[in-house]
């Protein structure tokens, strides 16, 4: 079963992250890398990507003529996707276990900053089954 794990943060949380002390920032970077490596080693990882920071984000709508109209102003409360993982696992329990790891980060980060909610979604990629 394939799942997508999404990590989101508000603009304020992004700004706070950028201002973390160097030690914590280094710990977080190191955790994210070893977490991806671990997923890869266990054969669960399909794809993972980090996203650019929200200050570069744009909202695009089609104008009356169909041309793009871009807007870069967002409400303060808006959550932005920070990154995602796509994993291929046995079932939901394993997916939740992995998501909890991502949510906690390293033990010291978990203690200091609490846990980060991870949204988990099924991927619609199974083969269609015939009704009998």
């Amino acid at each position, binding site marked *: 079963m394939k799942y997508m794990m999404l990590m989101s943060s508000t603009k304020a949380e992004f700004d706070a992250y*950028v*201002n*973390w*002390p*160097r*030690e914590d*920032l*280094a710990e977080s*970077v*190191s955790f994210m*890398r*070893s977490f*991806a*490596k671990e997923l*890869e080693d266990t054969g669960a*990882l399909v*794809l*993972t990507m*980090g996203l*650019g*920071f929200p*200050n*570069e984000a744009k909202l695009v709508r089609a104008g009356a003529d169909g041309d793009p109209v871009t807007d870069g102003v967002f409400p303060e409360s808006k959550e932005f996707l920070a990154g995602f993982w796509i994993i291929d696992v046995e079932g939901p329990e394993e997916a939740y276990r992995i998501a909890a790891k991502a949510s906690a980060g390293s033990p010291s980060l978990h203690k200091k900053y609490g846990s980060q909610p991870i949204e988990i979604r099924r991927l619609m990629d199974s083969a269609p089954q015939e009704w009998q």
Partner: protein
Amino acid sequence: MTDELSQRSLEHLLRDLTPQVLATVVRRFHDFDAAEDAVQDALSAAAQQWPWKGRPENPRAWLTRVAFRRMVDHIRTESARRRRESEVSAQIAYAQQLAFADSSPEQDDTLILLFMCCHPSLTSASAIAITLRAVGGLTTAEIAHAFLVPEATMAQRISRAKQTIKASEIPFQMPTSDERVQRLRSVLHVLYLIFNEGYTATGGNTLRRDDLSHEAIRIARLLYSLRPAEPEVAGLLALMLLTDARRLARTGPQSELIPLDRQDRSLWDRPQIAEGTKLISTAMRQGSIGPYQLQAAIAALHDEAPRAEQTDWPKILALYGLLKRMSDNPMVNLSHAIASAMVNGPTAGLRLLDEIQGDPRIAHRLDAARAHLLELSGDRLGAITFYRSAASKTDNLPERDYLLLQAARLSDVPTTPDNLRLKTSPHNPHTDA
């Protein structure tokens, strides 16, 4: 182990033979699109059969024969559709006759093929894909993997490239001497892009794209073997070798970026540096200097310094000065500013950065360079601002991590009136250079 080795040597052999076989088929049938498919079929037949049946005595002739047979099948199918039997059967007879003749390799064919794949009418993404497949002998799946796109997407990109080549009616022949310089420049540019794609992409543990750099070097070597007297060809190959030689030192155990001045130079590939240095010295003596030679000469100067502090910055600055006059490359302007800072102090470098500020092609690099020079000049808060600004603009994760950590390193120091403007920075020994 032996199996793995012979598997690898088989792959290398097939890749090396690809352009020769393809060129022969294109020359005979004048249909690049179909010829390319036929050769891919022949390659996969070889990969399946040779390990079991043993390698044929003349692998090139074997592949050519199989590809010719595929072409005959292709023409038959097409003819059934178009009902042009008589014309086609003549073509088939000709093809079958040729298939058993072991024509000697025509060296320039590979070069013509390279010119064709790097034709200026193709977008660079298309040219890269078709070059890797037709000249590099990579499968669509391998290319797709290297560029992190689905195989179907890459297949489309390749098929569109082939259509463009077909539509533009590029003849399968050497460009005229008028065109030669311009066309060679396109080829070198495509190879340079392939190399950079592999060199700059180090996106975490799951994404390894080093192979692209090695492919670029392999094709550049091939090109150099065909045109050893072109100084820019030698220059590009030298530049690739001298840059790639630092690969192992460029990233730490967690694939974090390590800048040039802090790399463990004992990890640099000395034989490769020696090869690149020899190439570039010979090329430059020929007296026709071009941008790739200059960049290779700069890379050689970095590689020759036993320690970062012993880098010959005045010479590098002079070379960037020459390079700047030759090309409108924003990265060159940026490097020129940094070299100037190393020779004349950070203020001189910052002044040069002001001149190129706002070039959107290198926005995050400009900010990173400014941060670095501000730090050298002692403006800690300014440096923090620009490191973070650069981090928010880059699209490479290890690079973003590196820039954020640089900012954090500086902001960890408590801000007091005394250290607001640091006299020297702890991590950069060339402050007073």
